[in-house]
């Protein structure tokens, strides 16, 4: 077998897109970005390289290992963009108090990270965010945008699971950071037996023990969530999540959302709702999102923030079956005798909004 010259190989983890694949990605990108623009979101472009230190606080050890870092020519440790939310927040924070009161923006760009063994290392995210000095109904707006954009993409068999990490603030307020981390990691992977065992060791009141198990093992509808026999304290903790889901139910999204307090993230910057969109036929979530005020606080800017990102790889795999890459272009042949006329015809056709394909 004859091998290609080594430098022409594509390294593992990256994937070039050709013709139909690139057209397909463009069509998704156009669909989502024009949808965000209709809701008055403006585009942002974040840098591909930034100083690592500023982001270090928000990345777990695993995420740090999965990021691409190197020393630049000034001897500084820099990071290739591995999360657009992080990079966009830092860009805004660097403008200090000159940032407007409310910003609504979207992005569509590549990131580089190694998420799991043998997984791709280049990912493409399209998402939108709201950053504001004070939130009222912004979380609802973001979730409506998510559910409506899924409709725009003609996704049908999907569910959005919504949790809220802040509800654990009250329940876990007397526990050490290590204990909280252990409990949350059990909850995230729905290791309910492990959670029960760990909670038993904590020597807490029976009521608190019951509240923790009932809430963190719950997954289901708003009605089922409301029927949980929780203490008054726990009812207060879950009230914001219930209120949010009630509003979504009133808007007619009841059959698309699931209350799921095990929706947590490996990312350290979420401090409120956390949600993912799961679709039939996709082995990983199509969308991740949530509330992340603490990220801005850490960056020195007091802001509320919420947003979500579509992950293009699983989305493309799922939608690919229905994509029609037929370009519908009109063929215009250039003949030696009529070159000028043929090219003029092409120019006029394009000006009148037609798509043409010059043939020689």
């Amino acid at each position: 077998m004859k091998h290609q010259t080594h430098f022409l190989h594509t390294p593992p983890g990256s994937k070039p897109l050709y013709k139909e694949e690139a057209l397909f990605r463009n069509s998704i990108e156009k669909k989502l970005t024009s949808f965000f623009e209709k809701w008055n979101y403006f585009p942002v472009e974040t840098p591909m390289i930034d100083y690592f230190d500023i982001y270090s606080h928000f990345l777990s050890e695993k995420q740090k290992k999965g990021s691409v870092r190197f020393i630049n020519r000034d001897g500084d440790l820099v990071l290739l963009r591995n999360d657009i939310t992080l990079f966009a927040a830092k860009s805004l924070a660097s403008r200090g108090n000159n940032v407007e009161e409310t910003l609504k923006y979207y992005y569509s760009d590549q990131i580089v990270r190694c998420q799991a063994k043998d997984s791709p290392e280049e990912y493409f995210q399209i998402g939108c965010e709201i950053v504001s000095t004070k939130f009222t109904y912004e979380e609802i707006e973001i979730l409506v945008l998510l559910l409506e954009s899924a409709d725009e993409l003609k996704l049908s068999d999907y569910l959005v699971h919504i949790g809220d990490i802040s509800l654990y603030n009250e329940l876990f307020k007397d526990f050490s950071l290590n204990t909280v981390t252990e409990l949350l990691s059990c909850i995230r992977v729905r290791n309910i037996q492990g959670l029960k065992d760990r909670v038993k060791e904590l020597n807490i009141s029976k009521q608190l023990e019951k509240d923790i198990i009932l809430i963190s093992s719950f997954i289901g509808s708003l009605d089922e969530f409301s029927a949980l026999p929780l203490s008054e304290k726990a009812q207060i903790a879950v009230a914001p999540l219930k209120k949010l889901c009630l509003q979504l139910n009133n808007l007619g999204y009841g059959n698309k959302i699931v209350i799921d307090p095990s929706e947590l993230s490996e990312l350290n910057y979420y401090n409120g709702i956390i949600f993912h969109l799961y679709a039939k036929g996709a082995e990983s979530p199509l969308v991740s999102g949530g509330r992340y005020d603490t990220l801005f606080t850490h960056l020195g800017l007091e802001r509320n923030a919420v947003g979500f990102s579509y992950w293009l790889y699983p989305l493309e795999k799922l939608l690919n079956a229905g994509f029609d890459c037929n370009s519908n272009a009109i063929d215009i042949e250039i003949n030696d005798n009529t070159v000028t006329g043929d090219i003029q015809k092409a120019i006029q056709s394009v000006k009148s909004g037609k798509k043409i394909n010059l043939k020689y």
Partner: protein
Amino acid sequence: MDNNNYINIAIPKGRLQNQISEFVANKGVVIKEESRKLDYIDPPNGYRFLFVKNSDVPVYVNYGVAHMGISGSDVIYEGDFEFMRLGTLPFGSTRICIAGYDSKRFLLDNAGKDGNFIKDIRIATKFIKFTKDFFVNKGIPIEIIKLTGSVELAPILQLSDFIVDLVETGTTLKENNLSVIEEIGKTQVEIIANPSLYKLNYKRIDEFVKKLTTQ
């Protein structure tokens, strides 16, 4: 039921498969293994059992071919994928141990102490990630040699100083004049699920888990 509507459950072929079949039969779930067939469909319950190699269970679950799987925690750890850890089964628990000639025990004892010259310690094992993580956490530098079977041969033929392996009764070790130097972990049989597939099918998956984990 449409083929797409079954809950696919990957189970490891071999000894563990027999234990699982026997266990779930008492819970009203039947797994029949027909000669050379790679799956078994249980239409009344809507389950499709996939018989795969032990070490491949996490792979089938990770890539969403199987919604869930039953596997040893050692295999899950080595796979290094992220799963829902839905429960454990009350059998198949085993010790994971460092074993070797007792006369070489001093190598490990000295390696853990400050100020000692550390000889390169060679360890043969199937459990690369577990072994690496264990010794890195202890701060003991080692060289790992990956073997896929008959690991006990490695110290006998001086390929390695020690092995890290599952030890049930210890009979094989004894018969070869080897012994357990230290127990460094315990494995158990776990029920895992692909996170996304779990979220879309949580009611049916939870129902299966409840069936298996309720006394």
